[in-house]
């Protein structure tokens, strides 16, 4: 009663379940190693049942053997520091495999129909993933350093051309499937061949202009794409294992990409379309624009910081946020991040105002530092968290001789890598002057009552 096909199908269902569990486990620190194992068992199961009705066992097995050997060697030999580029490379091979698979399948199809279209999409995404990953690999391993900037702007146009060709070819297929033979492209064989080349070329021009610092996000995106390619290939082959596993990777990979981009305080648009601009050294232009940020994004920035300076001001006192500030500090510390507190002598409204509050919250005196200790090493600090302080971090005190606060020594937080400012609005502090810090390129405004905002951050940290 059971055919080999249904037997395979049942096995695929099981391996899908294993993949689901595997991915879920991989996203928690304690279960991650086990998660990888579970997912690999899923893979083993799927592969074994597929081997049952292989057409050309020798060919296939030898290919698997060689591939397995190469992959394993790479994986075992690679230096720990080179792992990211290795992941990129593997990912590219995955994409290439989908590309070849769809190519082969289209080759053997005898009619042009909707499946042909899906196959074409597979080829495009697979090819793009392959070449894109290769570029990422070269960039990361520093074979490819900087791209000349004229190439960068050129790439943009080339990418558009690739996409236009994708559109043309797709409509060509659609029209053919309805029996119409359009003339805007040459005969099918030639158009298809061009398409094969264009697909690979697309990945090249897509990734080339992106700065090396953004590569991890790019790889994650390409990983998600390779999942989608697998899923589409699954449709072409009517293979549920491919569909489910591919979609899982595609969707969760997308989520991961967004999370990674946020934790680097970058948005995807920036990375892919103005990438080369902002990934070059960012000079402190004041451009009159503020950048609000959500507490989730702020969490992601803090979560991946390795040194955080907390600068409390009168706003912390008003919000009575000292206890949650202390808690946040503790959590950061547990996250193996170095936390210090920068106390400006006139922060608050009375001498020692911050000291009273932080002592109440049990912040150790040893963690409190004065501006003169902190300013020299400000540029080494990953993130400064300004909690309801304003005048005491106002760079015009040192930069604008006309300012009423000119001459006051300040905490020069604008010199750190990233500043997150917690306040309720854009209104000014005690001295009543606007604060250029808020407009610096490395500043983010986290609006809201300080206590509530920090409570949110704290809860993000605790899951």
């Amino acid at each position: 009663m059971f055919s080999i096909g249904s037997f395979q199908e049942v096995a695929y269902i099981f391996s899908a379940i294993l993949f689901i569990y595997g991915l879920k486990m991989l996203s928690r620190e304690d279960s991650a190693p086990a998660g990888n194992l579970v997912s690999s068992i899923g893979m083993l199961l799927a592969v074994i049942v597929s081997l049952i009705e292989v057409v050309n066992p020798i060919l296939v097995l030898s290919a698997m053997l060689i591939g397995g050997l190469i992959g394993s060697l790479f994986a075992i030999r690679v230096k720990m520091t080179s792992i990211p580029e290795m992941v990129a490379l593997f990912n590219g091979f995955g994409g290439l495999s989908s590309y070849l698979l769809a190519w082969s399948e289209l080759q053997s199809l005898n009619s042009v129909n909707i499946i042909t279209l899906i196959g074409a999409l597979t080829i495009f995404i697979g090819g793009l993933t392959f070449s894109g990953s290769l570029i990422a690999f070269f960039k990361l391993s520093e074979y490819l350093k900087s791209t000349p900037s004229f190439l960068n702007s050129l790439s943009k146009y080339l990418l558009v051309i690739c996409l236009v060709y994708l559109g043309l070819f797709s409509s060509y297929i659609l029209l053919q499937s309805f029996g119409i033979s359009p003339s805007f492209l040459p005969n099918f064989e030639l158009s298809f061949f061009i398409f094969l080349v264009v697909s690979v070329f697309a990945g090249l021009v897509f990734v080339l202009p992106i700065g090396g610092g953004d590569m991890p996000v790019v790889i994650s995106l390409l990983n998600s794409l390779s999942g989608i390619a697998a899923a589409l290939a699954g449709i072409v082959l009517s293979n549920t294992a491919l569909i489910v596993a591919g979609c899982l990777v595609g969707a969760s990979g997308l989520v991961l990409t967004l999370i990674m981009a946020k934790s680097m305080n970058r948005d995807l648009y920036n990375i892919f379309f103005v990438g080369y601009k902002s990934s070059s050294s960012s000079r402190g232009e004041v451009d009159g624009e503020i950048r609000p940020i959500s507490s989730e994004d702020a969490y992601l920035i803090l979560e991946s910081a390795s040194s955080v300076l907390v600068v409390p001001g009168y706003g912390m006192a008003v919000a009575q946020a000292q206890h949650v500030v202390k808690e946040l500090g503790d959590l950061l510390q547990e996250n193996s991040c170095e936390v210090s507190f920068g106390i400006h002598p006139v922060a608050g409204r009375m001498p020692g105002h911050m000291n009273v509050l932080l002592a109440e919250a049990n912040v150790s005196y040893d963690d409190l530092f004065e501006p003169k200790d902190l300013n020299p090493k400000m540029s080494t600090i990953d993130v400064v968290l300004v909690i309801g302080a304003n005048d005491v971090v106002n760079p015009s005190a040192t930069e604008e001789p006309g300012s009423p606060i000119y001459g006051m020594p300040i905490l020069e937080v604008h010199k750190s890598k990233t500043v997150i400012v917690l306040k309720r609005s854009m209104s000014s502090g005690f001295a009543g002057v606007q604060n250029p810090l808020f407009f610096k390129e490395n500043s983010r405004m986290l609006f809201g009552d300080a206590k509530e905002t920090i409570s949110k951050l704290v809860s993000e940290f605790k899951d």
Partner: protein
Amino acid sequence: MMEIYLLLFFILVLSIFLGLELISKIPSTLHTPLMSGANAISGITLVGALSLGTEGTLQTVLAFFAVLFASINVFGGYLVTNRMLRMFRKK
């Protein structure tokens, strides 16, 4: 025939939603391992590649390399992920 494709599409949609729900918060230390682990899973194309026909030379070559590269992805991916995760465990 059509119906089967629709069911496959249904499966596709459900899997996407499942994928979106599956991961919500990841410690930054796990970003790379998770990416790499997911990447290994996307080597599932291997399963597809195994079923390819090998009629003409082109097809044979294509099938051969499809299997070869997918295998690199699968074996390399799982092993490298495992190496990374082992490293964390030691800490």
